[in-house]
């Protein structure tokens, strides 16, 4: 199974500005320090092995969309942020060489950044496509139709030719979808959000974004510890610093890197992927947050190590 990240930003998609590209080029050339490269392969090796991530790459700017690939011959995706557009185009390429045209989409919630990619999801125009949308909210179809009403978008929902199925899932119940056993948990976020635990091919993946954790509620914390228990991969909202999440951004519905590590440690999870990055954070800021989180995990580790990754658009995590 491969977990593939198509969109990793929260709240609003963001794009790198030309000045930021220029800064990266300057930093790369400075790091090269006049070195002579014999070939493109040499350059690639230097870039891949000697440049820090914020110089050689970018965390990207598409909003939430994560694929679990290889669970079955159907597609399985979490959320329909702006990253869904690129996923859709890539999925169509895979369908042209035999992949089944069935999409299973699990929605954390219906805030704009998590549905905004759907009007640009090209497979939805294909009459041979089946799109199954799952979520804890029973208002998913209403939210999708509304964002494609004439006042907001030139193509109405009814124009889409794919076959749609909407299914409301219930916390505490297990669903069997696309080769996975799926459970969900209600999370603290405005109008609720839902986290998912997928058990597929002997591996467990938790997708828990847009969830604020009220640390004074020990019962709730313990529920999440159990939901994350022994997970191979936990994808979690780490949007704010802990201090911000406790003070000026309290009740904004998001979490922090410190809480993510503590929860994963208590649950004996194996890997954490930091996700739903603050859109105003540039690559250097996110990288610093990643390094701080790795260090925090080292400081707080009592039993087995938790590997800490930081999501970027295009990241692939094999399980």
């Amino acid at each position, binding site marked *: 199974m491969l977990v593939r990240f198509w969109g990793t930003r929260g709240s609003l998609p963001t794009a790198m500005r030309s000045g930021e590209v220029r800064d990266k080029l300057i930093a790369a050339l400075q790091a090269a320090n006049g070195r002579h490269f014999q070939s493109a392969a040499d350059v690639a090796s230097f870039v891949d092995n000697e440049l820090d991530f914020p110089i050689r790459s970018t965390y990207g700017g598409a909003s939430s969309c994560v694929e679990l690939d290889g669970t079955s011959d159907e597609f399985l995706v979490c959320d329909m942020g702006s990253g869904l557009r690129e996923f859709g185009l890539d999925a169509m390429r895979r369908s042209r060489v035999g992949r089944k045209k069935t999409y299973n989409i699990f929605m954390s919630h219906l805030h704009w950044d998590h549905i905004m990619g759907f009007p640009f999801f090209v497979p939805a125009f294909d009459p041979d496509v089946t799109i199954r949308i799952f979520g804890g909210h029973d208002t998913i179809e209403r939210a999708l139709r509304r964002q494609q009403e004439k006042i907001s978008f030139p193509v109405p929902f009814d124009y889409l030719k794919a076959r749609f199925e909407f299914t409301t899932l219930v916390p505490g119940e297990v669903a069997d979808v696309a080769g996975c056993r799926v459970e969900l948990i209600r999370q603290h976020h405005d109008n609720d959000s839902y986290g998912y635990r997928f058990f597929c091919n002997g591996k467990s993946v938790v997708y828990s974004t847009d969830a604020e954790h009220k640390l004074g509620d020990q019962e709730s914390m313990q529920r999440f510890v159990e939901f994350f228990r022994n997970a191979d991969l936990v994808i979690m909202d780490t949007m704010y610093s*802990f*201090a911000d999440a*406790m003070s000026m951004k309290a009740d904004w519905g998001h979490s922090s890197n*410190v809480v993510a590590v503590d929860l994963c440690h208590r649950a004996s999870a194996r890997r954490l992927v930091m996700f739903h990055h603050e859109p105003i954070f540039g690559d250097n800021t996110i990288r610093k947050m990643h390094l*701080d989180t790795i260090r*925090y995990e080292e*400081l707080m580790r009592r039993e087995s190590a938790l590997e800490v990754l930081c999501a970027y658009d295009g990241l692939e995590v094999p399980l």
Partner: protein
Amino acid sequence: MKWSKDLRQGNVIVSPGEPVDHENAGEFESLLIPAVEEASRSGGSLIIDFRNVDYMTSIGLRALMMAVKEAEPVSVKILVTGLNETMQEIFHISGFEQLLAIHESLESALAAASAG
């Protein structure tokens, strides 16, 4: 939880005696809040001496935040001292070093508390 309390020049000094995590954070908070109230009554500050605390998880930090929120309306200053290297890093990574006055020694914290 291991805990000691002292009163000097109207300032309340508390010293937790063990790491703070999800197992004892509730008790930590239940000791901290009355200490804020006592500092308010005595007209002084609250100094938290962490010299015997090896580490603190997010739940412990949250209890500190609750103390800060309790202290603000009654104009009680909270000062922190005794942080070992691990605790200093925790305060830095969590952003709490921006929220609390951190002093290298108890004497320095007392001097700052007396200065008002």
